[in-house]
């Protein structure tokens, strides 16, 4: 009877060790994955190193364009009969 109970205890111990080993192995895997991802993000060419911003013209340029919306066209003395007419609509 004592021999049977000792054998069961050894099997339970072995199961506990196996579970611990599996858990440790899984944790190690997760840590390795996280470390690889972090390294890839920090060094890989395809990964942004900072918060992405939309592509747009610099604010100063936009402001200058905005301030110059009312620009003149070019006129000259007439040299031919009119092809069209401007009138109030």
């Amino acid at each position, binding site marked *: 009877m004592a021999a049977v109970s000792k054998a069961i205890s050894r099997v339970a111990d072995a199961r506990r060790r196996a579970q611990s080993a599996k858990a440790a192995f899984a944790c190690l895997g997760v840590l390795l994955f996280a470390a690889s991802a972090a390294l890839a993000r920090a060094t890989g060419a395809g990964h942004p190193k900072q918060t992405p911003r939309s592509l747009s013209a610099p604010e100063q340029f936009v402001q200058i364009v905005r301030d110059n919306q009312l620009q003149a066209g070019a006129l000259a003395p007439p040299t*031919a009969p009119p092809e069209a007419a401007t009138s109030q609509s």
Partner: protein
Amino acid sequence: MSPVSRFDAMGCEVLVGGATRVELEAIEELFRSRDRIFSRFVPGSELNRVNAASGEFVRVSETFGRALQRALELAAETGGIVDPTLGGALESAGYIDDFELLPLDDPRPPAAGSPGCWSSIFATRACIRVPAGVRLDLNGVVKALAVDDALELLSGPGFVSAGGDVATRGPMTVALPEEGSVRLVSGALATSGRGKRRWLRDGRVQHHLIDARTGLPASSPWEQVTACGNTCVAADAAAKVGFLLGEDGPEHLAERGIPGRFVEPDGTIALNSAWQAAVEEPVCI
């Protein structure tokens, strides 16, 4: 240049010169689609949907958002002289239907006008919010924008004219109001005035050029103003600014290098210094 083609859209006659058949069809569709989106008189237009939802955030099409953005930029550039929030003021003055259908002598008095409030609009390209009770009117900027966009559809030299606003690619001679003509080398010519779209309310003359400060039809010493801009949108805005600023109009445009031609009610023509300089010295091209 191929023969000039004509069609009616946005309540005016559109002339196109230099377009192929395919380009002309694209231009016609462009004007008709803009009319469907921006007309105050087309039931179910996007403009009417936006106006009906004033006070709320509304999703808008890219075309609508772009036009409103442009109108707001012009309002900022002109210090609010040209304002897209004057739809209510136009309705108060009695402009409540297509001009052809408008009673020209309505015995009812005009309602009190609402001043412009363009700076209260929240707008992105996709979403806008207009203050409660405010009604947009984008007709001026939309017609001019359609002319500019239509010109981009031409593959070669040509011109597009809508209701008297002319934009060209390549030099052309353009007849001017009252008398004379000028060579438009590049850009556009637009004319604004109170002579054509005017009507009576309770015996008082009303017209569509609203003073944003009062919300009432503007009083101006000019009958009509013609301006030359690098685009039709710029020319149209400059002509309106020239008219609405009254006696200060010629100098205001000249300070910005914009040629302006001002016609008084008796037909007297005044040119600002920029216009005079342009027609006195030929431009080399």
